[in-house]
């Protein structure tokens, strides 16, 4: 069964450093998303991406965040200058059509 994959599974970085989280969505999917889950809290929407542009973003997704689909298979989330409060589990998701999103296993980001 096709699945969304994410790398790395765990990333540790120092405050102020740039990180890139990578995702490989399901191959025939057209919509891509990033969510995050701070430990003990709910899953929060960050951004959705379709047709090579952002279709919606949350208040969390400020200028420090960016997304890119650099080739036909990868979908990345970049945080330019990480802060302690960026520590969270980041989930990538993809969908073929509206709403039915399939999630990857997540990348745990720890900012020290």
């Amino acid at each position, binding site marked *: 069964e096709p699945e969304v994959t994410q790398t790395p599974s765990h990333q540790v970085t120092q405050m102020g450093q740039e990180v890139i989280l990578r995702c490989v969505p399901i191959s025939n999917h057209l919509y891509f998303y990033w969510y995050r889950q701070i430990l003990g809290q*709910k*899953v929060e*929407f960050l951004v959705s991406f*379709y047709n090579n542009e952002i279709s919606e973003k949350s208040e969390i997704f400020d200028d420090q965040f960016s997304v890119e689909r650099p080739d036909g298979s990868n979908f990345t989330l970049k945080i330019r200058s990480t802060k302690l409060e960026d520590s969270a589990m980041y989930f990538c998701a993809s969908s073929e059509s*509206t709403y039915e999103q399939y*999630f990857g296993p997540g990348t745990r980001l720890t900012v020290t």
Partner: protein
Amino acid sequence: AQSVTQPDIHITVSEGASLELRCNYSYGATPYLFWYVQSPGQGLQLLLKYFSGDTLVQGIKGFEAEFKRSQSSFNLRKPSVHWSDAAEYFCAVGVGGGNKLTFGTGTQLKVEL
């Protein structure tokens, strides 16, 4: 803005017992509704979804959910729980042009043997 409420933070049931996890949403129109399950260290797995039509939907692993418009609810049920069902369960609502999902705070299910 839309919101999702899962009033039960923790639920403990005995293996073989029935289960109902509650979910209420707040949204002007009928949203798209989902239940996801998250096992420890794992991602979110889609259990079932409701878009329209029959208000009782069947999902994977023997789960079902019923949409009740009058109560703005979408409760998840299972007639007989297995120890492997222990996990965290999230209700989610799909709204907005970007297809974003809004999640509830989750219900942690513990199954006693």
